[in-house]
């Protein structure tokens, strides 16, 4: 599950250098973004709406012209060698974009043809089966449910067997079952050595799926970290102390930031920052001792990426 952070562009399948984008209206959506993605990793680009995730993917895939900077895919420039770079990339865009009157199998065959690849019925069948679309191959798109349409878009993106797959908010408006199915497909792709870059503003998703997370905010990558490291490094923890005797109220002598009493009075919750020099745990415990409160049991809990994220975004502004 662990992947080394690529040190230079040599190890990277995707290398973004100083990419900025100012839209025609004058709005700057990306500010000198640098990012390297290693082969075979699942990378989550995490950021709120409007952070610039779709813009960044658009530049890599050829939908958006960068204002400055360069992008290399497998060592090839995306402009000068667009045929080489695009042949290895599959894109599932954020918006549902399909021709309603095409049949599923024709839509997938069309995508494959656009990429200049000869028909390969066996491969296409496998893709459709993996996405539970095989039974629907002769249906027109308009006859499919929303979730199926999304899967067709994934099938189209996989039709030319790309090495890098972009999933732009793959689970937005998608039900639990489909989400599970989607992760299975992603996992299978990873096992075949594919690199997957997904965007999301659902933090659990990044936490569950990604090897590394890049946090993007107002057009800037503010942090890139292995998911586990990020959790350990940045995480706040919650300490829960089970009390032998219930407390009516929090004694004045104990009151510190982050400490609260459970409703039933049998537990104390203490939020602390694992990164800080003084977590406050020692003081808390000695204060408890002094106040004559006896502790029966204790446990700590890692806070979710969501909470980390709120910290980051809230703190930096």
């Amino acid at each position, binding site marked *: 599950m662990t992947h080394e952070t690529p040190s230079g562009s040599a190890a990277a399948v995707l290398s973004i250098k100083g990419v900025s984008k100012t*839209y*025609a209206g004058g709005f700057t959506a990306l500010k000198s973004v640098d990012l390297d993605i290693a082969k075979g990793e699942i990378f989550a680009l995490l950021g709120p709406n409007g952070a610039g995730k779709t813009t960044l993917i*658009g530049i890599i*895939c*050829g*939908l*958006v*012209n960068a204002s400055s900077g360069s992008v290399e895919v497998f060592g090839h420039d995306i402009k000068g060698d*667009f*045929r*080489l*770079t*695009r*042949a290895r*990339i599959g*894109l599932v*865009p954020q*918006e*549902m*974009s*399909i*021709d*309603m*009157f095409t049949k599923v199998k*024709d839509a997938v065959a*069309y*995508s494959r*043809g*656009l*990429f*200049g*690849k*000869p028909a390969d019925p066996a491969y296409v069948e496998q893709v459709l089966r993996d996405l539970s679309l095989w039974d629907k191959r002769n249906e027109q798109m308009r006859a499919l449910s929303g979730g199926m349409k999304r899967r067709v878009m994934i099938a*189209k993106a996989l039709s030319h067997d790309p090495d890098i797959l972009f999933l732009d908010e793959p689970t937005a408006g998608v039900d639990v079952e489909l989400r599970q199915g989607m992760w299975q497909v992603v996992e299978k792709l990873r096992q075949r050595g594919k690199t997957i870059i997904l965007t999301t503003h659902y933090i659990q998703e990044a936490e569950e799926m990604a090897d590394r997370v890049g946090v993007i905010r107002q057009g800037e990558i503010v942090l890139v970290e292995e998911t586990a490291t990020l959790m350990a490094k940045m995480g706040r923890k919650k300490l829960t102390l089970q009390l032998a005797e219930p407390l009516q109220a929090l004694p004045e002598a104990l009151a510190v930031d982050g400490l609260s009493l459970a409703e039933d009075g049998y537990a104390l919750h203490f939020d602390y920052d694992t990164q800080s020099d003084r977590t406050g745990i020692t003081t808390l415990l000695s204060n408890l001792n002094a106040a004559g409160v006896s502790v029966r049991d204790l446990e700590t809990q890692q806070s979710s990426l969501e909470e980390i994220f709120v910290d980051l975004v809230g703190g930096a502004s």
Partner: protein
Amino acid sequence: MNWRGALTIYKAEMARTGRTLMQSVLAPVISTSLYFVVFGAAIGSRMESIDGIGYGAFIVPGLVMMMILMQSVSNAAIGIYFPKFNGTVYELLSAPISALEIVTGFVGAAATKSLILGALVMTTAAFFVPMEIQHPLAMLAFLIMTSVTFSLFGFIIGIWADNFEQLNIVPMLIVTPLTFLGGSFYSISVLPPFWQTVTLFNPVVYLISGFRWSFYGVSDVDIGISLAAIAGFFALCLFIVWRMFKTGYRLKT
């Protein structure tokens, strides 16, 4: 080169035509045939012949050209506008396919369709009016060049258009008037001298004149000028399309 990609676009466009056979083939054939019946057979029998050609026969090349211009422009325009409209243009932009290959696919399909329509309409015309074709090869060359050039022009319109109104406005407000005033129904020699001069600024005049020459050996303007005019317009359209893709005009942001 990714010619398979171009062929894929071409086939998909032809399939789209196949799905809308009534609207895309039957409608233009019927409406053009109505012109033959009304202007050619009914009114034409009471008209003087022009340049020694019966009126019914005289208008056939002009009507065929008019239909081809309209169909080429609107087919190619819709062909590229539709992916922009439903968002599937992302696939074209993110595929390893060049502007030239994309244009070949879309314009090739629109031009093919125009040629099929042209053949159908001329066959239909032969039932209503006596026709001869003196220079069949020149006629074919004119048909192909016109279909391709105006499909290219339509492709530009399709990229430029931001909504359905804009998509329709150019064919309606520019192509139709230019064709009507381009000598489909009359020889420009019947116009007063001043209007004859004005007419020479209408590019469609050269097309219709040259096309009519391939049928009956008579023309309003020199055949060489006709060929040069269409070649020039073709080059202009090609240049514009090339610039559009180069800059990503209305395709990329």
